[in-house]
């Protein structure tokens, strides 16, 4: 399962490589939001190809949820809040967990900067456009158009900011 994820990431990477001439800076591959019981409530793929299917994304989410918890238990320091960054050959995974237990994580090109602040911004968008939507039921999958719109703007802004550097 983990392999299939890596494969798809690797596949995307090769495509990204060809795009690098036009977009020299890093890219975000995908974004996940997991509720406090480990259920995937939001998934967005930013790759140009090699989109993961629903089952794969669900598996990545539940695997990450468990690994995150295990890392907290295994950590030699007390009060550890779990893995924040996983660096692999082909991708980085940045994770932010809110104090209420919701996890936001992005999978991105290795070495991508400023992902912590992007995740914080996404958390804020979640509070504004998901939790304040009177039709959203807590812990349930997020299907809010306004969140989608504002999220793409935030991700876009992040990319532009990086291109500008």
């Amino acid at each position, binding site marked *: 399962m983990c392999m299939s994820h890596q494969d798809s990431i690797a596949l995307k990477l090769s495509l990204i490589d060809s795009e690098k001439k036009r977009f020299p800076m890093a890219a975000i591959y995908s974004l996940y939001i997991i509720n*406090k*019981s*480990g259920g995937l409530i939001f998934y967005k793929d930013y790759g140009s190809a090699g989109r993961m299917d629903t089952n794969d994304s669900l598996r990545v989410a539940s695997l990450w*949820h*468990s690994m995150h*918890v295990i890392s*907290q*238990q295994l950590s030699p320091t007390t*009060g550890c*809040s779990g893995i924040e960054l996983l660096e692999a050959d082909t991708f980085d995974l940045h994770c932010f967990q*809110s*104090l*209420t*237990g*919701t996890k936001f994580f992005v999978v991105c090109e290795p070495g991508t900067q*400023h992902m*912590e*602040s992007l995740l*914080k911004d996404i*958390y*804020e968008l*979640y*509070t*504004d456009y998901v*939790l*304040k939507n009177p039709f959203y039921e*807590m812990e349930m999958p997020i299907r809010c158009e306004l969140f989608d719109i504002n999220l793409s703007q935030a991700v876009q802004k992040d990319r532009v900011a990086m291109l500008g550097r």
Partner: protein
Amino acid sequence: MAPVGPRSGDAIFANVERVNAELFTLTYGATVRQLLTDLEEVEEVNKQLDQMGYNIGIRLIDEFLAKSNVTRCVDFRETAEVIAKVGFKMFLGVTATVSNWDADGTCCSIILEDNPLVDFVELPDTCQGLYYCNILSGVIRGALEMVSMKTEVTWIRDVLRGDDAYELQVKLLKQVPEEYPYKDDE
């Protein structure tokens, strides 16, 4: 990147979208009045206001955390201070004070001198026993429950009942440990 520190209640309040407080105060008042008409029993109104507050609190906590950059509090004392100084300021534009701690630091009072919920309010005699601001206690209880703290929130003083301030007692019942997806024996 340097970690972003917690922001002061004033700074956050200056940045959030704000509205005319009169609208809020009158809407809350009209709601209490409608509940009194529909439910008749004052006790039942207290219960509903608390429930409404709880439902609000479980959502509002995330907005609070996202916009305040508050990190995990070391103990319940810090939690209470953050609620009083940052929480009240960020949403209601007023600050509260914390006092009357018990010896083991699990029970304290949050005291509110300026309370926007009660501008223009006078309770008629028929509303004896009504905790007019009961929505506030529900909000605190709901918000804390989302960060693993079970609390009991009760009114000690109420200006509408003739006291000199609003005093909420917040008692920490238990700190729920983080939930693990697997039991040890699995």
